[in-house]
């Protein structure tokens, strides 16, 4: 049986179930206890599990992510909430120099089963320091899995898998997804990390994307279907590991690819996917891989500008139409 629930509710269920299942799982972060987190993901956990396992932290991200690394090396399974992905910069050492490298530096003797949950993205006018999308940074440095679910179903199943994973996982939610709804099974389930999902099959063009942009891509696909353009929407769901097979299979099938993301363009995931596809599927491509991304400027607050900086449906539409046309210089 399925129920329709919110994305943040799906995450909450995942946390609740995993904390019930395994006493080593605990959550920590800022304002996650009584208040239930500023996006309400941890609501109710304090009442259910008490302050030891729902641990309020001082505003010291590098410190408490570092502490989570130490706890995860010694038998616990911390799930840390980083309130905004933008705060990854203050926690960057603990994430990139510690969590990501600990296993390798110990020759495999230690494991770091740590989850860092965070949320990112723009569209709410929160400004340059609260709207960034940082997945490319997390994915560039080896040693951390990077997961970005787009639906309540994926969010729940992937968060449960992230918590059970023996590796550090950065689990990136999107601030505009919390209030979206979707069907989620009553029964327990998990989803494997590292498998992309065809959210809509199609034959003319592939849109490769993840997180909130999946919703935009699906809306675009629906509109373009009316024009007779059959769009496939491939949701990567995780960047590390990347489901190369699904990416290449879809690229080979349609021969036309647009990559869409809210992160900046330069050295973003779009660049990686484009580079990969042209390397591996050169002869099957009908046209270059196109990218629809945020512009390479800090995210401004004014709604007029924020919209212009972040990828919009019409931008995706234009890129798809460009690929379907014979004009190589249209986008």
């Amino acid at each position, binding site marked *: 049986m399925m129920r329709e629930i919110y994305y943040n509710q799906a995450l909450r269920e995942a946390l609740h179930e995993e904390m019930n299942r395994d006493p080593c799982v605990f959550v920590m972060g800022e304002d996650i206890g009584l208040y239930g987190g500023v996006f309400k993901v941890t609501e109710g956990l304090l009442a259910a599990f008490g302050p030891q396992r729902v641990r309020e932290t001082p505003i010291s991200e590098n410190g408490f992510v570092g502490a989570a690394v130490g706890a995860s090396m010694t038998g616990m399974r911390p799930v840390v909430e980083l309130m905004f992905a933008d705060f990854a910069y203050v926690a960057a050492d603990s994430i990139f120099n510690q969590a990501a490298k600990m296993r390798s530096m110990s020759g495999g003797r230690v494991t770091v089963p740590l989850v860092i949950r965070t949320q990112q993205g723009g569209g709410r006018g929160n*400004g340059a320091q609260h709207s960034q999308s940082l997945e490319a940074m997390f994915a560039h440095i080896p040693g951390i899995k990077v997961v970005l679910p787009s639906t309540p179903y994926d969010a729940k199943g992937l968060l449960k898998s992230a918590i059970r994973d023996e590796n550090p996982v950065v689990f990136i939610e999107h601030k505009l997804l919390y209030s979206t709804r979707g069907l989620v099974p009553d029964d327990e389930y998990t989803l494997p990390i590292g498998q992309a999902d065809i959210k809509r099959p199609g034959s003319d063009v592939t849109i490769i994307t993840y997180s909130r942009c999946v919703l935009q891509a699906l809306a675009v696909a629906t509109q373009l279907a009316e024009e007779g353009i059959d769009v496939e929407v491939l949701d990567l769901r995780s960047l590390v590991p990347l489901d190369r097979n699904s990416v290449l299979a879809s690229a080979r099938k349609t021969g036309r690819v647009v990559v869409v993301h809210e992160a900046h363009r330069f050295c973003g995931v779009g660049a990686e996917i484009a580079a990969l596809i042209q390397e591996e599927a050169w002869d099957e491509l009908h046209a270059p891989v196109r990218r629809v991304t945020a512009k390479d400027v800090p995210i401004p607050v*004014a709604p007029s500008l924020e919209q*212009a900086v972040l990828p919009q449906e019409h931008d995706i539409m234009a890129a798809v139409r460009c690929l379907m046309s014979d004009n190589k210089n249209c986008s």
Partner: protein
Amino acid sequence: MPLDTPQLLACYRTMLLIREFEERAVKLYKLGEIKGSLHPCVGQEATAAGACFALRRDDYLTCTYRGHGQALAKGLDPKEAMAELLGKVTGCSKGKGGSMHFTDPRVGLLGENAIVGAGVPIAAGAALSAHMRGSDQVAITFFGDGAVNQGLFAEGANLAAVWQLPLILFCENNQYSEMTPITATTRTPLHVRAASYGMPTVEVDGNDVEAVYEVTQAAVTRARAGAGPTFIEAHTYRLLGHMMGDTEVYRTKAEVAEWRGEQRDPIKRTRAALLAREVSSATLAIIEAAVVATINEVEQFARASMLPDVSEVYEDIWVAAA
């Protein structure tokens, strides 16, 4: 030196301006005219007004997302401030920065900051700059109780102490960092933490504008004289939620009501002090009306202004080569 009556009146006007500005912003937020982030400083007007009254226009200031009051007290044009909240091109940052990034170097305002603690090293750098240029400017940085737990505070405070910078570290201890009481995140008083870097500290009733002015004035005098930084811990309280939408489950209505009372609310207290100094209530009423009129104009200006044109997107990122 205590404030004389005209000075106290000036501070009162500043406090009223801040209160009125913030309440108007809340109204505009609820109307959907302001989007994104809004962290009102209602209740904390005395720290802004009292501390900034001790500064010169060319002194430097950094503060936080809750820094509208300090920005206005330092001299930011309220029209530019409100327009910025609405994301208008007439805003102090042309609508690009928004509520958490008021900036105006013309009045020494080096920026609010949306990263807790980040303003401390930046202000230390401004103080270093003043010192290296042989200027007698000082810098002040406002931050909350929760910021003292951030490594950025520790590093900035240590730089200020080691280099004996002309910096005032002004901590507004409003008892909560977001929804978490400060007692849950530190075991010792904040001024004790600051003193450990080797700088004088002082505690003050942050809702007493005269007291705030006096301790800041003393710190500024020390700093200008080259005697180094001072940490001020001002006890205060925010009367509204941490941000718009805060359900305030973490505190009681009674606690808030007490701080709204005659004994605690900084504006009510200053009003009473002025009356006690035999300023007439008619005089006060004139000031109060004038502030409301100003904020009406401010609102009108902000609403009538335009959103930035899309062509602005690539502006203000890079300085082109000369």
